[in-house]
C-alpha cells in the first residue's frame, strides 16, 4: 500500500470525476457500483456489476476522510536549474496542504501569515534552526484558481541554486513530496485545467520525462558520489533487517531467536549514517560553499589564459613572458550550479627572483588546500622532466597533509600541435595519478566544456539537470528515511512489539526505493527463503 501511495499520490481526484467511486453513504462500509442497465457483451457482463467492500473497521473511530488524506502536496523548483544563475527562481507547492507547508517555513514581515489568494507577500524562509535561508515573495493561489486547480503556493527566491535548494529542502522537511517530472502538468490535466487537445502532448511529455527520470535514476545508482551508494546501501540494510524480523513473524517456531540488541545497533547505525549524510555530506557542502580548484603548472603553459577563458573574463594578465603571474588570482565561476573558485597560481619553477619565489611557495600552498588540482602542461613542449619534478612536489605536499586531492591533467595549447592528442593518449597511461586528462586551447575556448564535465565527474556531482534531479530525489529519500528511522527509534524506546518496528522499516525501505512504488514484499520473502531454512 505504501508503495502504491508513492505511485498514485499525484493523482488528485476531482470530486465530480466520473471515475471516482461514489462517496460512501453515511457511515456504511461499502458502496454499490450501479450496474449498467444493458448487458451487451454477455461474456463479460459480470464485470460491471460489483459491490466493492473497502476497509471499514466498526471499532475504529471514523477517520476524517476528506481532510488532508485525499492527495499529497508536491513541491519542486520550477525555474530552470543547472544553467547560469537567474535573478529569480521559483519553488512551487501544489496540493491540499500547500499553504500549511509553506506556512511552516515562510515568515512574513507581519507576525502571522494569513494568505489571501493571488496577493503577494514579502517575507523570509527559515530553516529548522530558525536561521534565515532567503528573502522570498510568497504568492498563494488557492484552488481552483491555479495552474493545477489545487492550492498552489509559489515562493519566489533569489536565483542562486543554493537558495532554491535550501528552500525546497525546507518544504520537503515540512511534509511536501518532491514532484515527479511533469507532475504539475499532469495534475493540471487530470483536474481539468488543460484542454483535451493537449492530452496527447501531456501524455507524450510525461512519458518522455518519466523515461528520462528512470534513466537518470538508474545512472544515479551506478554513478559514484552523491548519495547513490548510501541510498543503495541503506535500502539493502533495511531489507536485511526486515528479512530478519519478518521471518520470525511468519515462521515463529522454526527460527533461532532474534538478537534484539544487534538489530537495535543496526538501526542506530543507519540513522546515524542518514543524519551525517544529510548534515555534512559533500553534496550539501558543495552547494553552499563551492569548490576550490587550483590551476598549477610550469611557467608559461597557459594557466592564466585558461582561467580567463573559463571565467570569461580578463581577470589575469597574460603575456608571452614566463612568470608573469606572481600571486594567486581568484575567479568565481559556476558549473552546473556549483559555485567554483578558480585559483590561478604562479608557475612553479626553481627561481632566484624573491617575488617569484614567494609566488611559487604560495602556489604550492594553494595546491595543498584545493579540492581539485588542474595541472596544466603545454602540448607544444610535451611532457618534460620539469613536469615530473613539479608533479613530485605537489605529490609530496599532498603526502604531508595526508589527503588525496584529485588531479586533472590539462594539455593546453592543443591548437598549436593538433596531432598531439594521440601521442598524449598513448603516453598518459604511465601517469595514472591523474584522474582525467583533457585537451584544451585557452585561446579558442576549445575543450573547456570537457573540462567542466571532468570536474563534475570527479567531485561526484553528475553533470546536467537530469542528474541534479536524481540527487535532489536522493536527498528527499534520505529526509523521509530519517523521519521513518526517528519513528522507529521512538517505537523501540516505547518498547513496542516487534511487529511495529516493521512498519517504519518498511516505510524507510519504500522511500529508499529506486523507483517510487517498488514492491518490497516479494524481495523480503525471497530473502527469507534464501537465507533461512524455513518449512516444516
Amino acid at each position: 500500500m505504501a508503495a502504491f501511495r508513492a505511485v498514485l499520490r499525484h493523482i488528485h481526484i476531482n470530486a465530480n470525476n466520473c471515475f471516482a467511486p461514489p462517496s460512501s453513504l453515511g457511515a456504511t462500509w461499502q458502496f454499490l457500483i450501479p450496474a449498467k442497465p444493458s448487458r451487451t457483451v454477455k461474456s463479460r457482463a459480470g464485470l460491471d456489476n460489483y459491490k466493492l467492500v473497502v476497509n471499514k473497521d466498526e471499532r475504529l473511530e471514523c477517520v476524517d476522510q476528506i481532510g488532508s488524506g485525499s492527495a499529497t502536496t508536491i513541491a519542486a523548483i520550477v525555474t530552470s536549474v543547472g544553467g547560469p544563475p537567474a535573478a529569480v527562481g521559483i519553488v512551487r507547492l501544489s496540493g491540499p496542504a500547500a499553504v500549511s507547508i509553506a506556512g511552516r517555513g515562510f515568515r512574513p514581515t507581519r507576525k502571522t501569515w494569513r494568505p489571501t489568494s493571488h496577493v503577494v507577500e514579502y517575507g523570509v524562509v527559515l530553516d529548522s534552526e530558525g536561521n534565515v535561508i532567503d528573502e522570498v515573495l510568497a504568492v498563494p493561489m488557492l484552488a481552483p484558481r491555479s495552474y493545477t486547480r489545487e492550492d498552489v503556493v509559489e515562493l519566489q527566491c533569489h536565483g542562486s541554486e543554493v537558495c532554491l535548494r535550501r528552500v525546497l529542502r525546507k518544504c520537503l522537511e515540512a511534509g511536501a513530496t518532491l514532484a515527479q517530472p511533469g507532475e504539475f502538468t499532469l495534475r493540471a490535466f487530470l483536474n481539468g485545467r488543460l484542454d483535451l487537445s493537449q492530452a496527447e502532448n501531456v501524455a507524450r511529455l510525461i512519458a518522455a520525462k518519466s523515461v528520462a527520470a528512470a534513466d537518470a535514476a538508474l545512472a544515479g545508482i551506478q554513478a559514484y558520489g552523491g548519495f547513490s551508494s548510501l541510498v543503495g546501501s541503506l535500502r539493502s540494510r533495511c531489507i536485511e533487517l526486515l528479512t530478519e524480523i519478518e521471518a520470525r513473524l511468519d515462521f515463529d517456531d522454526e527460527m533461532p531467536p532474534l538478537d534484539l540488541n544487534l538489530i537495535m545497533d543496526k538501526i542506530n547505525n543507519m540513522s546515524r549514517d542518514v543524519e551525517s549524510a544529510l548534515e555534512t555530506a559533500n553534496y550539501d557542502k558543495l552547494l553552499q560553499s563551492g569548490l576550490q580548484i587550483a590551476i598549477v603548472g610550469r611557467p608559461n603553459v597557459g594557466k592564466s589564459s585558461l582561467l580567463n577563458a573559463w571565467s570569461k573574463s580578463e581577470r589575469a594578465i597574460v603575456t608571452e613572458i614566463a612568470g608573469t603571474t606572481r600571486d594567486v588570482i581568484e575567479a568565481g565561476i559556476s558549473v552546473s550550479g556549483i559555485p567554483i573558485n578558480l585559483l590561478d597560481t604562479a608557475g612553479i619553477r626553481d627561481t632566484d627572483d624573491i617575488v617569484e619565489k614567494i609566488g611559487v611557495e604560495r602556489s604550492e600552498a594553494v595546491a595543498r588546500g584545493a579540492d581539485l588540482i588542474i595541472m596544466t602542461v603545454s602540448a607544444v613542449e610535451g611532457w618534460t622532466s620539469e613536469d615530473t619534478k613539479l608533479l613530485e612536489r605537489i605529490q609530496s605536499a599532498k603526502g604531508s597533509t595526508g589527503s588525496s586531492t584529485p588531479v586533472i591533467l590539462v594539455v593546453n595549447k592543443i591548437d598549436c600541435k593538433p596531432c598531439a592528442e594521440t601521442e598524449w593518449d598513448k603516453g598518459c597511461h604511465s601517469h595514472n595519478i591523474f584522474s582525467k586528462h583533457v585537451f584544451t586551447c585557452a585561446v579558442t575556448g576549445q575543450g573547456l566544456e570537457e573540462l567542466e564535465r571532468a570536474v563534475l565527474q570527479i567531485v561526484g556531482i553528475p553533470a546536467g539537470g537530469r542528474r541534479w534531479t536524481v540527487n535532489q530525489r536522493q536527498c528527499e529519500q534520505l529526509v523521509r528515511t530519517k523521519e521513518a528511522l526517528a519513528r522507529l527509534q521512538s517505537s523501540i524506546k516505547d518498547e513496542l512489539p516487534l511487529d511495529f518496528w516493521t512498519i517504519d522499516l518498511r516505510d524507510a525501505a519504500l522511500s529508499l526505493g529506486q523507483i517510487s512504488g517498488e514492491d518490497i514484499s516479494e524481495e523480503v520473502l525471497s530473502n527469507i527463503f534464501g537465507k533461512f531454512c524455513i518449512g516444516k
Partner: protein
Amino acid sequence: MATAPLTLHLCRLGRNLCKTLFLTSSPVPRNPCGVSFRRRFRRRICFSSSSSFSRRFSASRELNCELGEVDEKYDVIVVGGGHAGCEAALASARLGARTLLLTLNIDRIAWQPCNPAVGGPAKSQLVHEVDALGGEIGKIADRCYLQKRVLNVSRGPAVRALRAQTDKREYALRMKNVVERQVHIHNIIPFLFTPNLSIREAMVTDILLGKNDNVEGVCTYFGMNFYAPSVILTTGTFMSGKIWVGRTSMPAGRAGESASHGLTENLQRLGFETDRLKTGTPARVDIRTVNFSGLEPQHGDEEVCPFKPISRFIRFNFGSNQAYGLYSLKMYTSIYVISLSKLYVNSFKGCLKGPGSLLLGELCLPAIMYLHNWQVGWFSFDPEVHIEREQMCCYLTRTTSTTHQIIRENLHETPTYGGWVEAKGPRYCPSIEDKIVRFQDKESHQIFLEPEGRNVPELYVQGFSTGLPERLQLPLLRTLPGLENCSMLRPAYAVEYDYLPAHQCARSLMTKKIQGLFFSGQINGTTGYEEAAAQGMISGINAARHADSKPLIVLERESSYMGTLIDDLVTKDLREPYRMLTSRSEHRLLLRSDNADSRLTPLGREIGLIDDRRWKLYQDKQARISEEKKRLKSVRISGGDLAAEVTHLSNQPVKDFSTLESLLKKPHIQYEILDKHGFGDKSLSRMEKECVEIDIKYEGFILRQQSHLQQVVTQQHRLLPEDLDYYAMTTLSLEAREKLSKVRPQTIGQASRVGGVSPADITALLIVLEAKRRKAQEQRRYKIMNAIRATTQDEVPEVSLTEKVNSG
C-alpha cells in the same frame, strides 16, 4: 395456500427432511436477507404460477416435482467437497440458493490430507475472517482441536496467531454433519425446514455452456447432467492428479483416491490456460512405536479462568488416551509452575503437591488472571463453540548426522535431484533433502511430531517430507531420536496436479471467460485449508448472488486478508503454490484477528449469512467495547496501588489525575493490571478486554495506518472501464500493454500491482482515462444540446446544468 408447494418438497425429500426436522446440534442460521427473499418467492409461487422472477430454475423445479419427474436443476453446483467446496456450498445454501455438492467420495468431505492443523500466522486471520462472515472452518477447528497455541504472543497484535492441531477424522466428520444437515428455516412456518444442500458422489468431466458463454451446468463421468446458473470448481489436487513415491507414479488425487480425468481437457477446449503444480506430504508413523521419553514436549495453551476452581480445567482422563501416552500430566503442572514463578511463587508453592494430586482441584487461583499467554484462543467469534477440551502434546525431535548421510548418499533417488520431476515445490515447504542440500552448514533440522487424532495411532512427522522411494523412507525415519523402532503407516508422497492460473478469474472469483463459472482453492494455485476456505466463502457467496442476479461481492485488498489473497492471486504472476503470509499484507496492523468481526460481520449480516442471534452477540460485544473505552477515557486516578504498580512495571511516572486510558498506553501495562486493582470491568470477556487494550494501546499507530490507507484507497479504487483496449494505448510500455490485456484489472490499484507495469504506465493510463472521460462528456453535452434544440425549451436545462458542474 402457502404450504402447498412446500409439502411437495416434503414428499420429494422426505428422507432428508426427517433428519433435519429433528436436528438439534448444528446451529441453523436464521438470516434476514435470504429469508425475506424466500418468503417473497414463496408468495409469488402461491399467487401466480406464471410469475417471471429471476430464479427460473427453482421455479421449474417446483413444476417438475408436481409431475413427479426427477430433474437435476439447482441454483449453485459446487464441484469438490474439500475445504473450499464445503465453505462454498454452505455459504450458498445459507443464502437460500438450492445447492448441490458433487464430490468424488462422500466419506472424504473436508479431509485434511496433509498436516491436520488450522491457523498459524496470516492463516489464522483468514480463519477469523471466514468466521466473521459466517463461515464454518473456525467453528469446526474450535470443536476438534487436539492442541492450541497462540504464536507471536509478544510480537504485536497484528501478527499474533492462533494455531490448532485438529483431530483429522473428527474434523471431517463434523464438517460432513454440518454439510449434510444444512437446512433453510422457513420463516412463515417455523417448523418447516427446507434442505437446500444436496450431496452427490460424481466425477465432473465437462461444463455445460449456454448461448452467451454462460454456464448452464455440469456433466459427469456416468453421463448425468446437473443444471445450475452458477458452478464452482474446487478440484484441489484431483484434476489429472498424479502421486509420486520415488520414481514410481500413479494417477491419483490423494493416496488411495482416484484422480479426476477429462475436466482439464474440456476446460482447455473452452479456452482456459492450465498449468501444473506440485506439493507433497510426509510419512505417518505409528504413535505406539515411538519413544517420547527423551523428546522435548510442545504443550498447548490452557484456558485459565480467574476465580474458577482449578477442578474446572483439571480433567485428567486416564481412559483410552493413556494407551498412546500422549496426554502429558506434566502439562498442567508446568503451567502453574511457570505462572507461579512469575507471580505469587511463595504463596502457592505449598499448594503444589505434584501432578497426580487432585488437591489442586479445590484451589482458587486469582493470580492466574495474569497468565495472558497461557490461554486457549478461539477462531470463532461465536461463543457457542468455545468448549474447552483436553489437549494433546506434540513433540520435537531433530535430524541426526545419520539422517543427513543417508540423504546425501541417495540424492539421485529423489525426484528433484534425480531430475525426473521438473515442477518445483513451494519454497516454504521444502523437502528434507532440499533443506540438507541448501543449508549444508546446518547440522540438524527440527522435526515436529504431531498426533493426527485422539483415536488414531497416526503421527504426522512435520518437516520431513521427502521424495525418496519408500524402501528408504523407514530407515530414514528411524535415524530420528525417539523413532528408532518406529513403524511407518503411510509413506511420504508428492502430488502433481493441474491448476488454472488465476488471472483468468475476476476478484469475485468468477471466470472472465464464462459467466457463472467460479474457481476456488488449489485450482487457483493456492495451498492450505485456510486459503481454500477463504476462497470458497467468496465464491459461494458470489455464486448464490449470481444465480439470484445480485451484484457480486469483491473484498478489496485493504479490507481483509481474504481480499489480499484474492487480489494477489488474480493480479500477480505466481510461480509456486500460494500460501498466505503476514508480510504479503501491506497494512497488516489494520487486519488483525481481533477485529476480523468488526471488519466483516456487518458485511456478513448484509449479505445474509449472519443470523439474528449472532448479530446480537456481535452488536452487544461492540457496544461493550466502546462503552469500556469511553469509561477508561473518563475515569482518572491519582496515586494509590495501581499508580505505584504501573510506575514499577513501565518505568514511567504516573501523573496525578491520569486517565485509565493513559495508563493502558504505557509499555507492559495490560488490562489485567486494572482488573487486579479493581479498576477493570469484570463483565467483559477476555477477548473483549483484549480488543479494548489493543484499540487503546496502539491507537496512534492504527490511526496513522488508517490515514495512510485513506490516502490511497480513494485513488486506488477508481474503476477501470472494462472495455479498455490496452493495445491501442501507445503511451504504455509494450510489456504493460500485454500484461494489462491479460489481467484486465478492475481498478487502478490492481493495475499498478500487475507485474511489469511501471508507475509511468499508470500515469499514462490515467491520462488516457481522463481524455476518454472528457471525450465522452463532450459527446453527451453535445447530444443534450441537440436535444434541447430539438425539444421544447422548458424541459431539459436542468440536466445540462448538472453536466456543466460535473465537467469542472
